[in-house]
């Protein structure tokens, strides 16, 4: 994660406060989960689920402020032109960036981005292309006054030994309002590099094979509520929009 945006003054104080918030949530939530499990009842399970969620959500409070930078790279077995063209059609981005609901081209290099926010909300910002060179690079940033400040870039290089195209991508997020802090972890998952890594792997699979591998929606036998819940709150899984909410809802219904 990047540096704190609030400047040197009060920096330490804020960091401490967030750290306290984070650890108290994790410890408290964890305790609740353990207590719930020892009840060995349906309501106990719901309590455990809620505790687990609190602990999990707390663990995702960024310690370092409201800013995050992530970068990653991948080699895709297609020509640079094809990779560039796919990325440049910004409407394509949600097909491999899971936190995005839609991107609409507004013309003149401008675009409207809608991301999945916490609690089923939407977060919208407008962005513009800052620079682009055909088959080489694209960079973009949000327009001034957006709730989330985003700067991103992607570069396309010919990979060694004709292995296709090496793609290096970088994103920098900054939340301008206090409540939006919660959005960053929602977008970025467990840690920012991982989210960009997953986006790039999905991009690679999509371009090479025409689809992204998935098992979502396949059948399975009975899973206990705990196994089901642990699948939903696994911090390593790509976040499906609204999955906390559905998990909570499910736990509530069963309790």
């Amino acid at each position: 994660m990047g540096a704190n945006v609030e400047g040197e003054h009060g920096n330490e104080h804020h960091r401490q406060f967030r750290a306290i918030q984070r650890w108290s949530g994790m410890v408290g939530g964890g305790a609740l989960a353990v207590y719930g499990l020892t009840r060995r009842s349906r309501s106990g399970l719901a309590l455990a689920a809620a505790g687990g969620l609190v602990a999990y959500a707390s663990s995702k409070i960024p310690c370092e402020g409201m800013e995050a930078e992530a970068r990653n790279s991948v080699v895709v077995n297609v020509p640079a032109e094809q990779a560039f063209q796919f990325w440049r059609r910004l409407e394509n981005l949600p097909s491999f960036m899971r936190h995005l609901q839609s991107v609409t081209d507004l013309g003149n290099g401008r675009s409207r981005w809608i991301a999945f926010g916490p609690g089923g909300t939407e977060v919208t910002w407008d962005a513009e292309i800052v620079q682009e060179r055909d088959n080489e690079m694209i960079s973009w940033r949000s327009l001034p006054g957006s709730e989330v400040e985003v700067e991103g870039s992607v570069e396309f290089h010919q990979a060694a030994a004709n292995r296709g195209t090496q793609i290096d991508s970088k994103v920098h997020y900054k939340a301008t309002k206090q409540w939006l802090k919660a959005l960053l972890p929602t977008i970025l998952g467990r840690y920012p590099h991982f989210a960009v890594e997953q986006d790039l792997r999905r991009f690679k699979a999509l371009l090479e094979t025409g689809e992204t591998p998935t098992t979502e929606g396949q059948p399975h036998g009975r899973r206990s509520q705990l196994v089901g819940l642990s699948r939903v709150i696994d911090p390593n899984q790509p976040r499906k929009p609204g999955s906390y909410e559905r998990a909570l809802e499910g736990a509530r219904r069963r309790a």
Partner: protein
Amino acid sequence: MKAVCWMGREKISVENVPDPAILNARDAIVKVTSTCICGSDLHLYDGYIPTMQQGDILGHEFMGEVVEVGRGIENNKLKAGDRVVVPFTIACGKCFFCERQLWSCCDNSNPNYWIAEQLMGYSPSGLFGYSHMMGGYAGGQAQYVRVPFADVGPLKLPDGIPDEKVIFLSDIFPTGYFGAVNCNIQPGDTVAIWGCGPVGQFAIRSAFLLGAERVIAIDRFPYRLRMAKQAGAETINYEECDDVVEALKVMTGNIGPDSCMDAVGMEAHGKGFLYLLDKAKQAMRVESDRPIVLRECIQACRKGGVVSVPGVYGGFDDTIPMGAFMNKALTMKTGQTHMMSYMQPLLERIQKEEIDPSFVISHRVPIDSAPQMYKIFRDKEDQCTKVVLDPWADGLAAA
């Protein structure tokens, strides 16, 4: 539909689950006509493969009839009505690795690649019914199964050839053959093969097909050694022998086998202090595998020879004799089988009647008997070598 589900360590249950559906454009749905329990499924049964979850559908050896294909599959590649055998590895056919025929290393078929990367650095291909680390794909011990990238993996079969002759093209025949290919057999070679389970049996026959003069098979179950002998192998029952390495030395005039194959893997049995130590460490989860056979292979192999490892390993292994491996200038070749390279040529060998793979079957049962059969197979009861499940037989009548 009925499906065999992993419900926990040593807990298998046949559950009623929803039918699978096409999820991606290159998927197909196959109605399963025959499916088997594999020796590697026993590692799941015993709880040694991490990232299994209660309710996961098991099975990676299956064949059947295509009932539906996604819109991304061309008609000449695969269509409803085709009879197919499906390889246990899932490969996209387009990535760097697939282009080089390293099918089991496909880069695009494991949606949970990062779990495998934590353990192995990079992720191998997705597998059917073999833990979430390997993709979490629902397996084929069921009445229907979803097959991703179905224009790459499934091998179309001619009519008239019965299931029992071709079902093992899904895994164990190519796997035994791949193990023998990895031995780099030269005419006149001696190959020692540890493990006379189904893969070992196919490895013995494949070694002969590839030009080996002598095959020495090592196991402890007389009925399995008998089967090896029928294929022309010499045998060693390690329980009746003080020292396998010494026995091989004597049998080969102090040269050693040209290649040694570990067709056993992570749950090897053996004798002596190191075996007991491995067993204790594995029980306490401080060592994931029991590499007794791997150690013996390295010790027994002749200088400059090849160690081939088709046996499955899961994690980290102690006390590997690296000194012997280095100083004897050995080569090790291993990997999940690159299935798509071997299925068609082996089908042709079956059609030419060079081999009839059905010799390995000991049990044919309805799918409802799967829970008992896992136990019987694991405990080598009832002279069990290979279990074929019929997903559609009436379990109550036949069990």
